[in-house]
């Protein structure tokens, strides 16, 4: 069998409208069977109104629900002599979907990568779910330094290049961090991994290696891998930029369902149509600063000239 062929799972054609079953995070035909047994996805259900959210596992805050899940203060970052972020402030609240967009080199990916400390801040601090890290603001007491690994375990990340481990099957890609980070037993980890794959509609691909999967399928496995860690916030770094056009839809659909289910998300993307659909807070960046923020209105009526130029260029 051609391993790239979706086969019996038959991914719908791109552009297929996204079904609106709230709180069920399923990629394709497996939706029906999962609806029959709704136990698995319910744990990740969250609502922006917060009341129900704090009672659910895997949902935004452990402490005060009014506190943002992610708080970035005065973030500065330099590569060598070149400062690429000139002081960024950003709050992401539970259940909120933040879209970072702007021209390449504007620093949006660096902001995203700073949230889970893949980039070490030179100044300012990052705080995720009460764990703060960073040298703090100049003239201020240094921020209380949590352990980076502790902070990273609260954050899920999806990369442009998928970054699946090629020597492991799809199932093992998801199960490995469950074992080594969550300390689960092999059998429990495999079961949870299989459930996560089911959520993205790839249960039937569990025994496949990344090389046997299409780009869209690989990215969905990567999403399942990050989700299975029960993160407080999911970061997406241009998740569809490396995909062939016909594969973009299936990944956006999974992300859309994740957003519908109330996951807190920060997304760097050039898919402004998608951004318009899910973005609660849209952040336009240019040359290492936040230029303008707003709701979806920002895409139609930008006020800053740089944002206006950018919107004209991409239209």
């Amino acid at each position, binding site marked *: 069998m051609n391993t790239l062929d979706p086969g019996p799972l038959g991914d719908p054609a791109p552009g297929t409208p996204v079904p609106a079953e709230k709180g069920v995070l399923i990629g394709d035909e497996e939706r029906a069977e999962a609806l029959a047994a709704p136990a698995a996805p319910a744990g990740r259900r969250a609502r922006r109104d917060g009341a129900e959210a704090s009672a659910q596992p895997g949902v935004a805050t452990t402490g005060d629900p009014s506190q943002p899940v992610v708080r970035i203060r005065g973030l500065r970052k330099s590569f060598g002599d070149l400062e690429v972020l000139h002081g960024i402030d950003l709050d992401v609240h539970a259940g909120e979907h933040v879209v970072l967009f702007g021209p390449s080199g504007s620093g949006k990916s660096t902001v995203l990568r700073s949230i889970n400390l893949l980039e070490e801040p030179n100044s300012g601090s990052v705080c995720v779910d009460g764990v703060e890290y960073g040298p703090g603001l100049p003239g201020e007491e240094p921020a209380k330094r949590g352990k980076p690994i502790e902070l990273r375990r609260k954050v899920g990340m999806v990369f442009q290049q998928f970054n699946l481990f090629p020597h492991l099957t799809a199932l093992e890609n998801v199960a490995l961090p469950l074992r080594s*980070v969550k300390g689960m037993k092999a059998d429990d980890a495999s079961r949870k991994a299989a459930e996560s794959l089911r959520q993205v509609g790839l249960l039937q691909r569990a025994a496949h*290696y990344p090389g046997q999967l299409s780009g869209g399928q690989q990215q969905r496995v990567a999403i399942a891998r990050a989700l299975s860690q029960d993160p407080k916030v999911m970061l997406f770094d241009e998740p569809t930029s490396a995909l062939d056009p016909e594969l973009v839809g299936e990944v956006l659909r999974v992300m859309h369902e994740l957003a519908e289910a109330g996951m807190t998300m920060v997304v760097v993307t050039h898919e402004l149509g998608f951004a318009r659909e899910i973005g609660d807070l849209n952040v336009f960046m240019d040359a290492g600063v936040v230029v303008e923020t707003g709701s979806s209105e920002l895409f139609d009526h930008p006020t800053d000239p740089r944002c206006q130029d950018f919107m004209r260029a991409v239209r």
Partner: protein
Amino acid sequence: MGITSYDWGLIWDYRSELLHGLLTALEVSVVALLVSVVAGLGLAMVRLGKKPFSWIAAIYINVFRGMPALVTVIWIYFGVSLVVGINFTVFQAGVIALSLLYSAFMAEIFRSALQAVPHGHREAGQALGMRDTRIFVSVVAPQAFKIALPNVGSMFIGMIKDTSTFTVIGLLEVVRVVQNVNAQTFQPFVLYTAAAAIYVLVAFAVDLLFRVGEGAFSTPPKGAVSQLLRGRKQRRIEALVAELA
């Protein structure tokens, strides 16, 4: 005179001596291979690590990559005995010399293999909250091992060939056996041709062995060996899928 005096039957007459020489060469090489793989991996990690230590590793690598096997084994067998007073057996001296030389080559093989693993895979591990040692053991090392394997095979063939220089300290390997037999029979052409054939045949065998090894680690699994190694795992996953579907 001439062609008629070539006595090819000598190879058969002295087969047990030749075979014994080959076994000695293989024993020295296999022990040295194990030592130099472990030492080379350690050296590669130091070489990629923090500064004063990485320089020391770089110096070691460049010194021993540059040293001829003949010089090294003389240095170990006679030099160490003279200067430090430690007397190694010829077997020990051979293993030590080969290990010193080839850990330097292995270090470079492993360094390039470790660097060939995409940085994004490390980052993915970090982003998932995995510890650095876990990322190395479960993500980087298995991929690097696969990349390094063919070159390790080539190095092993080189090691077996380099044992021929240990004839100088009297190790009874293939060339030494050939010299001894030649001293009695005066058939250098026949005997050295036999030696060459032995080395070439061994090279083919080693190549085959490492090819099987490569196949065993291919993804998706290809061939009988990898099926044997990973078929059970594959079936377990498929059973789990069938159960949950």
